[in-house]
């Protein structure tokens, strides 16, 4: 049984298809990287998986105990957030909102979850800091802690290293790999093809007509790898 099984997806927005014939599945413990050129439909695919965009064709099945809303999401930073006056604690706690159900306020359980994830991301001492005053790497850790509050099963990351310096990038990849080793399933949309084949277990390469899905090892031997400009090994 897979967490997510997608068959013959047609992706698009406002009635215009962007990519089709996309089939793949994500199992518990997988680390899937979604690659492809700009405009190939990577972001649309991710938004579709998260339920933010509706599907134009094909099917997505959630299984193995995963509910559609049990996905932790690390979005790209929006321009609203750059000067947002919120403390780290407020942001991380907001990730646990779905656990509140119909209750208006956070209970002890949600606060413990937030604390646990702040410690896990090693940013507990920053909890009173204002988000806009943090460095790029620290901001990503905050958003990651928030995503972990929303789901302990599956994380979806949208080009998470954009704007990070090389050191912060390396640290961030290691952090994700560690989470994956702890049993968390990862889906990452990325431009960084070499990091993708280094860390990921599976690769989905999205193209307009025909997409590639397989393990990272198979991917580096395929023509898709050559076309996107990967080093021949």
């Amino acid at each position: 049984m897979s967490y997510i099984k997608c068959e013959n997806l047609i992706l698009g927005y406002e009635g215009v298809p962007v990519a089709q014939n996309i089939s793949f599945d994500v199992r518990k413990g997988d680390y899937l990287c979604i690659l492809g050129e700009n405009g190939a439909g990577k972001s649309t695919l991710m938004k579709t998986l998260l339920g933010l965009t509706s599907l134009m064709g094909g099917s997505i099945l959630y299984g193995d105990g995963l509910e559609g809303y049990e996905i932790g999401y690390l979005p790209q930073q929006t321009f609203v957030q750059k000067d947002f006056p919120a403390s780290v604690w407020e942001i991380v706690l907001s990730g646990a909102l779905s656990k509140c159900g119909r209750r208006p306020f956070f209970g002890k359980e949600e606060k413990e979850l937030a604390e646990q994830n702040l410690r896990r991301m090693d940013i507990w001492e920053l909890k009173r800091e204002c988000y806009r005053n943090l460095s790029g790497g620290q901001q990503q850790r905050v958003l990651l802690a928030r995503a972990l509050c929303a789901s302990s099963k599956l994380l979806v990351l949208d080009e998470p290293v954009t704007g990070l310096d090389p050191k912060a990038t390396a640290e961030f990849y290691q952090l994700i790999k560690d989470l994956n080793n702890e049993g968390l399933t990862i889906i990452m949309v990325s431009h960084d093809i070499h990091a993708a084949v280094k860390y990921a277990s599976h690769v989905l390469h999205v193209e307009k007509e025909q997409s590639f899905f397989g393990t990272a090892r198979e991917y580096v031997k395929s023509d898709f790898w050559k076309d996107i400009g990967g080093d021949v090994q």
Partner: protein
Amino acid sequence: MIETLQFYLSYPFVRYALIVGTLIALCSSLLGVTLVLKRFSYIGDGLSHVAFGALAIGTIFDLTSTSIVVMPVTVIAAVLILRTGQNPKIHGDAAIAMLSVGSLAIGYLVMHLFSTSANISGDVCSTLFGSTSILTLTKAEVWLCVVMSVVVVAVFVVLYNRIFAVTFDENFAKATGVKTNLYNTLIAVITAVIIVLAMNLVGSLLISALIIFPALSAMRVVQNFKGVVIYSTVISVFCALFGIVVSILFSTPVGSTIVAADIVMFGVNCLVGKILGK
């Protein structure tokens, strides 16, 4: 000066003005933080012009309480602005600009064509700048304002965590199962209600100031969301009370005096923010 103030406070219309002023200042600043952060500052401006147009039409039909017309029209406009804002083909700012200048023009036209009053420019001026209406409130209008304010504050407190989530990151909230459309619509509706109430206080041209200035002032100094919300309501209520008292003592127009107080407060907070190095 204190004696003059006591003398004025013995009149019920002055007390009404102070009560209504405080409540409106409180409600508008609560929502202001969210609207500013969501880049919706101009919704207030657009809606207030719509409310002006609706008020003009209500006046020509000689309705005893114009709120019956103004409230629903403004609420519908709020929902419409929000919907078109999400449509990538018409940009939100263009939609608001269209609606706002359109209703301003229609409102003035209608007033001019059908008005029974001898002093049209006086009427228009008081609707736009709220020069006297705060001092001519009836008991029923005060009660309407009290009830609406209680509802607004209660809704805001109960939904505080959801409003924060939707303001900070709408996509994340939606992906984790928060009904973002519902909350966005709710924010728009509450904004419309506040604007209709606030027209009495500062008039339709100055409402935006009441919504955005306290929020912007608070954001200069405070570094967390809850703090910003609380501090901005404190600033807003203080400026409203101060403005009303000053306008009574020195017979200045109420609306613009309150806004002037808000501007000074913004300057002070900018300075404090600089000094604290944030």
